[in-house]
Structure formats: structure tokens, C-alpha cells
């Protein structure tokens, strides 16, 4: 009796295991796994686009999965390490080199994207759109967004403290002075800040500050951490800024970009997309016109007029996905790009297509000229080998100075030693 039951149990198990593979799904049905970073506004738009894409392509279904920005980078790294990455995904410029150098990306399929050739694809986008994702003459991604940060200013908070809102801070020194006066402390404890940086994206805002002082990540001879004096000065500024100095801000405090929308901070760094978020989160403040966007500040004795470093997010396709899925994944990326106007209009994301950058829609966005002008005085974010690790090391140097008072010269020495070790 027991034997019969055991046999029946084994048969049942066998049937259950086999059942999904006999579910009658057609062989030509394609499921695209699409991983992206969290963005509530983009989620609404992309879910709508995916729905219409699926209707237009009945044999295709899309599973869209969101992760936090840092988590997405880790998930991509872990999944590709296990040869099990998503079919379509996006990453920022500084996180791409390892995938590109190790042939994990599929070369762009111009036809699936709706172009006659790679040349016509390149021609549709602004120059430099593909430099990060180009290897051996082939292109491995198309831009989802192109972002540069400028200084968002709450004009009311500035004028309330006796500053002329029409003259927002143009130098870091002015910004520190204004931020100091706008900072509110209750019994000595920080209640409200005037401005704070966008930690931990040090390649985007801190490296340009170093460049303003004549330094850079790489020297012309290829050595790493160029011009100690510039790095030390930039780090000294961050020390002054941090809790061990004047305590005007810290990586551990609440995100300035989000506080700005609720009028909880006077200034922050952000991209054009901040305007759409401001509109959706605080429409009254948006409509009041009591805010503005100013150029990225420079040091008063800058040797180079340098804005924040713009970065791309790229749509990329997994080279290990099967051919049919790759084609459909590129089609989906192309479908998103075909709706670039909606990305700009609804969520403020600029796909660097010439038809977008030249459009009235972009120029009609408040302060878009500030972003366009800043882009002209900027260098794209470093996206070469080990960009992500270099960003972590620079972050550790900045945070060691800001949070536990390591002297800037020691922090620079440690940074160089670690960077040299990394790049060996």
C-alpha cells in the first residue's frame, strides 16, 4: 500500500514538474526582461508605452522591474556574473565599462531601432552620444537620458534672508556664505540647510570642482590623481562644508534634491527633470515662479570655467539573450526613443536626439537655456575603465575629510595609492 502511494506521489511530482513546459505557449512568443532604476514619473510613462508596444507586437510581453539606483548596479553586476542578466536594461555612463569590455553587450541593431544604418542612427543623436558605449567601431547602447546638473534656487528663501534673488551665487565661496546664513540651527543642532551636494555622485559634481582648480583624475601622462594642490583645495572646501567644519551639510543628511521640492532647502543641484518633479510634487511652488535655475558655481580663482559633468543613461541589450529576444528588446528601446517627446514633456528627461535638443519643446521648458549653456562649458563624466570604483574611492576621500577630519593632503595620498592599486 505504502509502495503504491509512494509511486502515486512520484508520478504526481513528475506531472507537476512537466506541467509548465506543456502549457501550450507558442515557441515564437518572446518575453523581454527589462530592468531599470526607480523613477515614479517614468514608471507611469513606460508602463503606458509598454502596454501599447505589447498591443502592437502581440507575440511579445515585457516584464519591467525597478530597482533603486545603487541596487540596480549591484543586481546587474551579480546577474551578469551568473550569466543570467536581463534582456534590456539601463545604466549610467560610469557603470558601463566592465560590461562593455567583457563583451556582455549586444551591438546596436539599427534596423530594429527603426534606422536604415548605424550612420543614420548616429546622425539622429547629438555628437558624443555614443562615445561611452562604443568599442571597436561598434555601438552597444542608445541613450535613455542626457543630464547635466545646475543650481536650483528658492528665490523666496534667498530674499527672506536679505539676498538678491536675481543674483544667485556664482562662486562656491558665495554659495558657502549664503548657505551659512540660510542654515538654521536650534540649540546648536542643524534644523535646515541652505544648500547641499549630491552625494555620492562625486564624478558628476566633485571632479568638476577639482578641474576648476586645475586638477583632474588623470594627468596628461596617464598617471592618476593629477595636481595634488587642486585636489587638496577642493577637499578643504568639502571639509569646511561638512560636520567637522562649518556643518552646512553632510552625506548623512536628507537628500537636498527632494527637500527642495517641499521648500525645505534653499538650493540644490539637479537636472532638468527636477522641474517636472517639482510640478507634480508642489504645483503651487512651481506655479509661483519663486524658484530659478542658475549655472553650476565655480571657485572665485578657478583656472577653468567648468560646469557639472553631464552623464548619459543608456539602454543596453544582453549579448547572451537569444536572437529573437535581442531583436525585440532593441525594438522596445527604439519604441521608447520614438516617444522621446513624451519623456521630455511628462518627466523632463532629455533623450539626446537632435530633434529633441533642437525642439521648441525643450526650449520652452523654464531655464532650459541655463542647462544648454552649462553643457557647453562641461566635460562628460568619466566613464572609462573602473569608473565606478574610482567614484567610490573619490567618495571615500571626500567623506573621510568631511566626516572624520582626515587632513586633505593625507586623503589625497590615500586616494592616489588606492587608485593606482585599482588601475594596476
Amino acid at each position, binding site marked *: 500500500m505504502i509502495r503504491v502511494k509512494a509511486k502515486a506521489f512520484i508520478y504526481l511530482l513528475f506531472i507537476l514538474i512537466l506541467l509548465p513546459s506543456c502549457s501550450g505557449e507558442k515557441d515564437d512568443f518572446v518575453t523581454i526582461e527589462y530592468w531599470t532604476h526607480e523613477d515614479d514619473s517614468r514608471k507611469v510613462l513606460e508602463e503606458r508605452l509598454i502596454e501599447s508596444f505589447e498591443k502592437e507586437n502581440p507575440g511579445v510581453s515585457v516584464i519591467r522591474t525597478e530597482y533603486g539606483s*545603487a541596487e540596480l*548596479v549591484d543586481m546587474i553586476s551579480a546577474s551578469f556574473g551568473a550569466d543570467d542578466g536581463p534582456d534590456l536594461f539601463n545604466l549610467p555612463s560610469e557603470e558601463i565599462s566592465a560590461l562593455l569590455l567583457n563583451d556582455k553587450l549586444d551591438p546596436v541593431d539599427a534596423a530594429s531601432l527603426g534606422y536604415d544604418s548605424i550612420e543614420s542612427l548616429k546622425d539622429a543623436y547629438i555628437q558624443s552620444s555614443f562615445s561611452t558605449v562604443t568599442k571597436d567601431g561598434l555601438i552597444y547602447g542608445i541613450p535613455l537620458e542626457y543630464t547635466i546638473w545646475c543650481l536650483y534656487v528658492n528665490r523666496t528663501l534667498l530674499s527672506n534672508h536679505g539676498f538678491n534673488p536675481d543674483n544667485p551665487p556664482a562662486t562656491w565661496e558665495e554659495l558657502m556664505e549664503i548657505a551659512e546664513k540660510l542654515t538654521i540651527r536650534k540649540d*546648536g543642532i*542643524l534644523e535646515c540647510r541652505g544648500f547641499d551636494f549630491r552625494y555620492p555622485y562625486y564624478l558628476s559634481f566633485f571632479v568638476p570642482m577639482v578641474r576648476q582648480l586645475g586638477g583632474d583624475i588623470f594627468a596628461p601622462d596617464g598617471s592618476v590623481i593629477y595636481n595634488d594642490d587642486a585636489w587638496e583645495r577642493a577637499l578643504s572646501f568639502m571639509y569646511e562644508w561638512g*560636520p567637522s567644519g562649518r556643518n552646512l551639510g553632510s552625506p548623512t543628511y536628507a537628500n537636498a534634491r527632494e527637500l527642495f521640492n517641499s521648500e525645505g532647502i534653499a538650493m540644490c543641484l539637479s537636472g532638468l527633470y527636477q522641474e517636472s518633479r517639482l510640478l507634480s510634487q508642489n504645483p503651487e511652488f512651481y506655479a509661483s515662479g519663486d524658484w530659478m535655475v542658475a549655472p553650476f558655481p565655480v571657485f572665485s580663482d578657478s583656472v577653468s570655467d567648468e560646469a557639472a559633468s553631464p552623464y548619459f543613461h543608456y539602454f543596453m541589450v544582453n549579448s547572451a539573450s537569444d536572437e529573437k529576444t535581442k531583436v525585440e528588446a532593441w525594438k522596445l528601446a527604439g519604441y521608447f526613443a520614438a516617444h522621446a517627446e513624451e519623456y521630455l514633456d511628462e518627466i523632463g528627461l532629455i533623450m539626446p536626439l537632435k530633434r529633441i535638443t533642437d525642439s521648441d519643446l525643450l526650449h520652452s521648458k523654464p531655464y532650459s537655456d541655463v542647462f544648454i549653456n552649462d553643457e557647453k562649458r562641461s566635460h562628460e563624466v568619466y566613464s572609462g575603465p573602473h569608473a565606478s570604483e574610482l567614484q567610490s574611492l573619490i567618495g*571615500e576621500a571626500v567623506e*573621510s575629510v568631511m566626516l*572624520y577630519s582626515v587632513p586633505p593632503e593625507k586623503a589625497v595620498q*590615500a586616494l592616489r595609492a588606492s587608485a593606482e592599486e585599482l588601475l594596476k
Partner: protein
Amino acid sequence: MGQKSYSIERKQAKWGLIFTIPCLIFFAVFSFYPIINALITSLTNRRAIARTSEFVGLENYIYIFTKDNGGFPLSNSIRATLIFTIGTFIPMIIASLIIATFLMQLRKDKYRGFFQLMYYTPAVLSSVVAASIWMIIFDPRGLMNQISNFVMHTSGVDYNWLVDSTMLQISTMMIYFWKYIGYFVILFITGLAAIPNTIYEAATVDGSSRWHTFWKITLPLLKPTTAMVSIMAMLQCLKTFSTQYMLHQGGSSRFPIDVITMNIYFTGIRNGRLGRASAMSIVLFLIMLVFTYIQLRLTRSSEDVEY
């Protein structure tokens, strides 16, 4: 007769084996295989994304013990892990024993149940939620600064809970302590409940005070539980990851709280150096093995306890 009992024993042993097999398979697949795999990987220069791998002998071990590892040396991680473990598991064992004893003194079961639930609730919260709650508490305007200023008779002092390297380490200990103490309280309560009441009744008849009873009866009879709880707590502390990771994600500096598991994560996942990360995991495994052995030796006599 003898043959029959032998056959019953065999039958029972057979069923015992059948019921144990899933556990053995589970252990083999999810514990034994990863350990062996990590050991083999630690002898290679395997990279995550490239998926390339070459045998390099002990190179990874030499590297992690002699080099900087991109600014985050293993020596710092061992320091951070040991400080965290010592600072967390000893107070946690003492506090959970005291709380469990207190709860056992409560006469009404409903009160005991209520307090057990209260203490255990943080253990079921996800680390993300726990870290978010504590980041609000540790905020300059948060509860912790208010309490600290009240206790220290200061005014408006920011104790930099998430900023200063020492305070940051204390913060991780506090979060962990809060999150897991309930779990160990439950284990101690189970141990205390297993001590027969008759022993306490005999002690009361003999005129023993509560204090005396605790030291001379409860504590010695609780030795097996204490040994088990302390080993579990220590191992759990040595493996700590999510608390430190969440605080680092929240903006705190990595270096002071870069415990071994976090270094393994960043080396293996972020930097893609699986060989090095595996060597670190083997080092962590050996540390855990040595500490467990020492603790087992110290609590060896606990096996003698009989009720």
C-alpha cells in the same frame, strides 16, 4: 524476540534516514557546496562579469593580508567585525538573559506574551525598514540627540551618530541589539521553561532567596542554553551585513563599519573580484570556526547538566 526488536530498530533508522535526507541535501547544496566552491574560487583570479578564471594559488590570500584592497584592507574589516561582535553579542547575551528571567517572573501569561511579542517584533522587520527607522532616530534633530543631551546634561550638542567614526560603530551596535534581542530572549525563555519547577520548589522549601536561586540553580541549569545562544549570537554578529550596508547606503562612511561581509560584497559584487572576495569569505569562515571551537571548549561542562 531479539531479532524482532532489531528489525524495528532498523525500520525506525530507515525512516529516520528518510526524514533526514532532505536536510542533508539542503545542507550539501546550500552550505557544503558553497564552502567548497568558495575555497576553490579563492585559489583563482575569477572575475564576476568577465567570468574568466585562472589558478593563482595563494595569491589572493597574500593580497588581502598585505595590500590595501583599493582603500579597504581586510585588516580594517577584521577590526570592524571584532569590535562590532564584542560590542554587540556580550551585552546582547546579558540583556536577553535578564529580560527572559524578568518575563518568566511575570505571573500572568498574557503579560508575558505581550512582552515577548514586543521584544520579538523588531526581529521580523526587514533591515531596510529597521535602518530607515534608526536613521530618523539618529538624525541631528532626532530622538537620540535629545536623549543624549538630556542624559549628558548638555544643550544643543549634535553627537554625530551617523558621522563620527566611533559613534557610527556604536550606532550599528544599537540597531543590531534592538533588532535581534527579542530572538535571543525567546531562546532563553525556552531554556528557562525547561527547568523543572520542582527544583525551584525544593530551593524555596530550603529557604533559598530569589537572588541565590538565580545564581545557584537557574544559571548553572541554563548553561546548555547559554552556550547555544552565545554561539548563535556570536556567529550572527560575525556575519552582520545589512545594518552596516544600509547605513552606508544612507550616506555614512564605509571605512569605520566595513565589516568583513561588507568588504566581501563590495570586492565581489561591486568590483567583480570574486577570487579575492572568496578568499575573504574563507578567512571569515576560519574566524567563525576558531571562535566557535573556543566557545565550545569554554562551555564544555554544560553537557553535564541534568535535570
